[in-house]
């Protein structure tokens, strides 16, 4: 009971001190904090250097997907319509981004490294239909670029985020 009164006033001092410090809030849309290098964001489909798609339409990614958000419809490659390097290619490749949980299992399941998860996380839309990404969208170079932290900072004995917290 005797310490109650001084401790009560101590509290006022603590709050008053904060007023003169700079707020630690990061002003998000203007300031984008760098994501860590292995951050799993928007997917990306890849091509070989000769322009052929890496995806062969095997549907292993769709099978591995826990959220069941990938749809693959395969078709045969023909000599005059060669799309991928393998026997077949993905005629339709869709990812429903509103269902995706960004676990990265598709990336692990893919035998040809055709699909990877990028770093982009600003993928909200006003319309749910716009969140179904087609093959063309996934093959194209992502429009938005997200700042990514230097991998060197993380792959060291004392990672950056540990030495700075």
């Amino acid at each position, binding site marked *: 009971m005797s310490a109650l009164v001084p401790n*009560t006033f101590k*509290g*006022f001092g*603590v*709050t*008053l001190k*904060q*007023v003169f*410090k700079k*707020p*630690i*809030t990061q*002003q998000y849309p203007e300031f984008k904090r760098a994501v860590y290098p292995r951050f799993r964001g928007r997917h990306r489909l890849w091509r070989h250097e000769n322009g052929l798609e890496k995806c062969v339409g095997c549907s292993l990614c769709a099978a591995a997907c826990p959220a069941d958000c990938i749809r693959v419809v395969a078709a045969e490659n023909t000599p005059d319509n060669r799309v991928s390097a393998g026997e077949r290619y993905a005629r339709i490749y869709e990812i429903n981004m509103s269902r995706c949980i960004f676990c990265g299992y598709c990336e692990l399941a893919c035998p040809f490294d055709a699909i990877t998860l990028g770093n982009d996380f600003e993928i909200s839309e006003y319309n749910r239909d716009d969140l179904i990404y087609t093959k063309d969208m996934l093959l194209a170079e992502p429009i938005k670029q997200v700042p990514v932290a230097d991998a060197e900072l993380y792959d060291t004995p004392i990672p950056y985020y540990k030495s700075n917290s």
Partner: protein
Amino acid sequence: MHPHELWWISLIKAALIVNLVMGAFAMTTWLERKLLGRMQLRYGPNRAGPKGLLIPIADLIKLVRKEAFYPDSAHELPYIVAPVVSCFTALAAFSVIPWGPGWTIDGYYVAGTVVDVPISLILIFALGSIGVYGFIVGGWASDSKYSILGSMRTCAQLVSYEVALALSVLGVVLMGRSLNLVDIVAKQQATLWFFVPQFVGLCVFLLAGIAETSRPPFDLPEADTELVAGYHTEYSGMRWGLFQTAEYINMIVLSSLCVTLFFGGWHFPWVHSLDRFGPIWFLAKLGIFVCIFIWLRASQPRLRYDQLMRFGWKVLLPVATVNAIVTALLVVWV
């Protein structure tokens, strides 16, 4: 005592003061968020307008546009009238608070208050008591168990602390020898601002007043983190906004009462020639008290209900009573 004031001057003045108080209320919500933010190492609102100054307007638009539903089983008339009563009584208290010495503009006399009644202090307390009805009736008329429990909490707290609040100003009334706020302010300027001789009264008044306006750490009627919302659980839109307005204006009324009763009202210390700018000094003092209220909110944790009741009845009430008796004896014998 005063030269006669024309009725239309009073009317203009009333409109002016109501708008001024509403403006002060808007600024208070902004200041509270901003200051609370800075005390928690945040920025507070900084998107709507420069420094987030337009946030009260954004809030108003949001609240007005929001659907104001009410429960099917609610008692319609009291449900709708309750927030209006609370808000009206809170605003009406400003009619008797003196803003300045009175001015003569272009031959017309303008008094320092809207109305100068001989028992203005009692009027303020009476209006405050009616305002409590708004909170209680609103909770009851919602016909919801959360609301009724919330309004019972509010009722118990406000009734308990009103006793201590009224007793704490008794010392000031005895020293000022008047129930008129204008006379009390004049007496303070003639002798000494009452926060020195009535320091105990000031402490009791502030503590009881914080509880009376249900501000943290006495915000048990609402208790954001523990309860659904208290008596205004079933309110939404601008009806809820009116309750919120009433609470903030009550806080401003209490601060201005504190300034008027203990800190010389609209007077500027020592320099008498500056007294004609009364409203400026009054608002400055008011601002300091509002900041103290916000500071208190940022610093202190909420009381438990039994602590609240024990503090009100076993600490504040005896202290206020002893203060009143001692003041009375000193006033008679010294």
